């Protein structure tokens, strides 16, 4: 597969969240505000990129029977690195994200890309694929968080945007069901544009 295609595919046509419906749980949990959503997105980009890279480098040395354990060790290590980094340098955000950084380990996108792509491809391709899938995830997170923060609190990144116009906050936006509905609407729009994705 060509490298550019390899990079653009997970952003829209094969987006991990809205096409493969992976990683939904964290998309619901961390999208109340934009800031934690951005940090979460960056963390996932880092983890998918480097777990893909490492597993691709190891792919010829790991027996297939124990590959899941090796993958878990690699992913867990990376997640702990991210978690410790956030605690050291962005303590407030890390408190907001609470367990969800640690739960990146169980994010299906990470494991899915390692299994489906990194184990069969060269390191550089695998790295690009990891970055692209991370970005595809982060993109959806940021879109959802944008609408939830804008309409739920009237702010963006904590700056007052709508309240000065007399906007009344919609508190339903702060509840997790609304994140699910927004993801659903994104899927709806996405599939209306890409007709080949519609199920018969």
């Amino acid at each position, binding site marked *: 597969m060509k490298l550019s295609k390899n990079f653009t595919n997970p952003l829209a046509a094969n987006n991990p969240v809205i096409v493969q419906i992976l990683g939904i749980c964290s998309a619901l949990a961390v999208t109340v505000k934009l800031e934690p959503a951005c940090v979460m997105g960056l963390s996932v980009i880092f983890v998918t990129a480097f777990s893909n890279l490492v597993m691709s480098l190891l792919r010829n040395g790991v027996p297939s029977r124990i590959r899941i354990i090796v993958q878990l060790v690699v992913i867990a290590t990376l997640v702990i690195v991210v978690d410790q980094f956030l605690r050291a340098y962005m303590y407030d955000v890390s408190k907001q994200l609470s367990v969800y950084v640690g739960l990146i380990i169980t994010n299906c996108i990470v494991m899915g890309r390692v299994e489906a792509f990194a184990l069969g491809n060269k390191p550089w391709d695998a790295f690009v694929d990891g970055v692209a899938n991370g970005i595809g995830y982060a993109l959806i997170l940021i879109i959802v968080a944008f609408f939830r923060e804008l309409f739920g609190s009237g702010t963006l990144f904590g700056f007052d945007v709508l309240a000065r116009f007399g906007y*009344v906050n*919609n*508190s*339903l*936006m702060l*509840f997790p069901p609304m994140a699910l*509905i927004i993801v*659903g*609407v994104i899927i*709806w729009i996405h599939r209306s544009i890409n007709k080949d994705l519609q199920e018969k």
Partner: protein
Amino acid sequence: MGLRQFVDKIKPTFSEGGKLSFLHSTFEGFETFLYVPNTTTQRGAHVRDCNDIKRVMIMVVLALVPAMLVGMYNVGYQAGIEGILPAFWFGFLKALPTIIVSYVTGLAIEFAFAQKRKHEINEGFLVTGLLIPLVMPVTVPLWIVALSTAFAVIIGKEVFGGTGMNVFNPALLARAFAFFAYTPQMSGEAVWYADGKTGATALEQLATTGDMQWSVMDAFLGLIPGSLGETSTAAILLGAALLLFTGVASWRIMLSVFVGGLAFGYLFDAVGVTDYPAYYHLLVGGFAFGAVFMATDPVTSAQTNCGKWIYGFMVGALAVLIRVVNPAYPEGMMLSILFMNALAPLIDYFVVERNIARRKKLIKNVK
């Protein structure tokens, strides 16, 4: 020129190839609104009941009228206006904008979707558009009505494929949206009075003090504060009689909702959680309104007869359970109906499965 000739004259403009053919379903909607369509199927045998969706929907709207009229009078009565007509007129003027906004928003979205998807306009919104204002406090800001109507029609109905395909009752979804999104405008002490007075509703009084300041007769006739259409149990029963007489609503559901509510009301009264009689639950708040007009929605309720009993009983029981046990929600009817809407297909599934299993066993025994 008669209306019929006029409609026939402009028909080609909206038909295939005409100038305004993209407005075909809008034209079709108005034409069938004015006249019974005289087109017949060309092939195959069709046996049809004369009771089409339009007639069913109009029946429900008619059944809602008594509750609406008494609700309007009650708005004026609660505001302290003397005399029946002045009080009614006051309430009518307060309620009319809400009804107009609900219809205009909802129908605009319905028409747009029908146009886009090239199918006929469904009559389902005729009822929903009247139900929404009836389950809102009369002081609700109009933009909240518009927003929640839009939410209910788009997210509650159109994403599932339009009228007849929805999982949740659209009118209740509109109320749930407004309730959770704009809690201060939808609950509390001030929203139930049109003239700035404040005071707890009967439900809130029952939940906090265990008694209410109104007599049982007032609650039955609907002279207590509350949402526009929900207060008068008497008027709602009048509507219920019409629905049952015409066979539009299921008597099984209606009856079992009341039975479920009474059963749990008695249970809580007997074990001492509440100290007011069980039938209070049926008179105050939206219980009767929900039981008659919301729970019986043929689209979102259970379809099998046995399923209807279970569904209805659970609606009533859960409503009372939420009212009594959860202090955050003095009114449980909305949540219990929405919850059972979600479970209705599951109930049907198990009823059907059990029936299949029973008949399989029958065959085995015969062999």
